[in-house]
């Protein structure tokens, strides 16, 4: 019965989700499309972070740095006249390399120490973006970043660009899905659940820790590259520590270690504040309300929004078990 319930639930959500992402842009104005694209980009970025913290169990508060490295790589390369289609893989590659390097402190320090090491890394990257004007334009940023052209078809308008980002999101989600079902995915989860036991079972902790950072970073890098092209103007602010903290929040609120966690989490982190801003009477108070909502949500659902089905399942199982117990008890009582 649970299986049926879950299948119905899952199918309903898939159909609704598909309708939303495929059809909705046809009925939205530019701002709505922009917001949806923004949401997709954060889904990509937080999918990577979910791999690092939700599946591999590493504490990372520096994800926005990779987001920024991706964005600046593409922006700088496009300003130099290099195509977006070279910039995107370059951004991914660079993030992979830096992600590997960032993984090294993780081999030495754990939990809160690691969280602050990555937070510090983010600060450093942000300071470079802000201060090295010759490269990044400093606080003036880089403007007029073009959107890419694909097979001679321009993605300059919002709607085509949205569908392009959607396609990238689906491809990357598919790759992550495959990765998590491969032996690698199992190794990541073993690392999260008990590193020492994982090692005793022959999982190379060192490699998988580094890879969990590096692959997570690639997702952020690609997201950053798409972001630069979406907003067409980048400056250091969106890549500061606060953004990393928001991404961490999105993963945990959605449900760390749930595949669809980032989809929900990014909606809470990106769409909810925007929506609250438009609710009449709320305008000035949308950020405090958002903060309060996050606190209450955590108290109510510490494992994130996607733990709701699991909770219902657990409750049903408990009820079924107690019913079975009562039945058994009355049977025993009757026979005696």
């Amino acid at each position, binding site marked *: 019965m649970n299986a049926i319930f879950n299948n119905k639930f899952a199918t309903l959500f898939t159909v609704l989700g598909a309708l939303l992402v495929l059809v909705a842009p046809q009925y939205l104005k530019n701002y709505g499309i922009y917001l949806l694209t923004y949401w997709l980009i954060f889904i990509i970025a937080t999918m990577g972070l979910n791999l690092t913290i939700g599946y591999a169990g590493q504490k990372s508060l520096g994800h926005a740095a990779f987001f920024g490295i991706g964005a600046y790589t593409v922006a700088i390369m496009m300003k130099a006249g290099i195509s977006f289609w070279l910039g995107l893989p370059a951004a991914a590659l660079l993030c992979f390399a830096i992600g590997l390097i960032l993984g090294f402190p993780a081999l030495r320090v754990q939990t809160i120490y690691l*969280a602050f090491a990555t*937070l510090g890394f983010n*600060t450093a990257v942000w300071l470079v973006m802000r201060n090295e004007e010759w490269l990044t334009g400093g606080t003036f940023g880089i403007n007029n970043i073009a959107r890419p052209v694909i097979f001679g078809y321009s993605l300059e308008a919002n709607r085509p660009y949205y569908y392009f980002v959607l396609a990238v999101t689906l491809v990357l989600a598919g790759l992550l899905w495959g990765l998590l079902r491969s032996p690698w995915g199992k190794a990541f989860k073993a690392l999260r659940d008990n590193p020492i036991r994982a090692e005793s079972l022959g999982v190379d902790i060192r490699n998988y820790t580094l890879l969990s950072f590096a692959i997570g970073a690639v997702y952020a890098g690609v997201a950053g590259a798409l972001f630069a092209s979406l907003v067409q103007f980048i400056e250091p602010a969106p890549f500061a520590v606060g953004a990393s903290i928001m991404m961490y929040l999105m993963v945990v609120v959605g449900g760390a270690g749930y595949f669809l966690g980032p989809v929900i989490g990014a909606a809470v982190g990106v769409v909810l504040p925007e929506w609250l801003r438009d609710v009449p009477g709320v305008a000035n108070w949308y950020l405090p309300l958002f*903060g*309060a909502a996050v606190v209450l949500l955590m108290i109510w659902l510490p*494992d994130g929004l996607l733990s709701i089905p699991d909770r219902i399942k657990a409750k049903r199982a408990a009820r079924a078990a107690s019913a079975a117990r009562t039945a058994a008890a009355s049977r025993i009582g009757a026979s005696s």
Partner: protein
Amino acid sequence: MTDFLQLLFSGLATGAIYALAALGFTLLWQASGTINFAQGEFVMLPAFMMLGFMSLGAPMLVSFVLTVLLAILVLGWVFKRGVVDPLFKYGMMPIVVATIGLSIFMRNGVRAGYSAEAHPFPSLFADKLFNIAGVTVTLQDIGTFVLAMAIVMGTQAFLAKTVTGRAMQAVAQNTESASVLGINVPRMIFYTFAINAVLAVAAALLVTPTYLAKFDMGEGLGNKAFFAAIIGGFNNSRGALVGGLLVGVCENLAAAYISPAYKDAVALVIFMVVILFKPQGLLGKKEERKV
């Protein structure tokens, strides 16, 4: 040399404040495993509470006492019962995110409900300059340093010398044995939260005259306090003092001799060096890893 001393002195004053904020942070961590990402906002809010009481006409001392009481209630009791207790058993991630939410709520709540501007804050000390060994030091700097050190040392003496303090340390080290020994564990943990709140009020009193009361003043302070706490040793409250002073002084020196643009990276660099060579911090003890 004079320049160097000058920088050193003003760095010590800043560092003492970092130490104050860092101390509360390590206390909470030891007693309850809570990482409070709203620690900076815990300093910002009392500053506004005090301003509020003073604008109602209360003298500074009365405002301070009222603020301490209010802070113990809100930042101590409500925070513990409302946020930490329900999340305690779920590990680090939900508490981290809840306190992040709390910091967003507090920071933007003050901005939306009160003001986005910076407000001047009366200083405890007269506007006076001293000349020591050719170095000009303000009374504000000296007073801040002395008071902050006194508070940090006083807290430590309380923890080490009094029965209550020792009971609190017992709870921090081993909750189960402490409760077997008849220590009222929840009460000791509440005391820790209360002390954290009082330390935050003290920090607000010392830091705001120089940096002005502003809704986002907690952001930088909280970050520096975190780094200071980890540099000194997360599970050692004396470490907070060492870390705080070290960060404050190095930051000042680096801003003058290296580059003001990279001043904020100083805490980070010390932090990286320390955790590479001594992951548990300068004074910290190694924590056993559990299988």
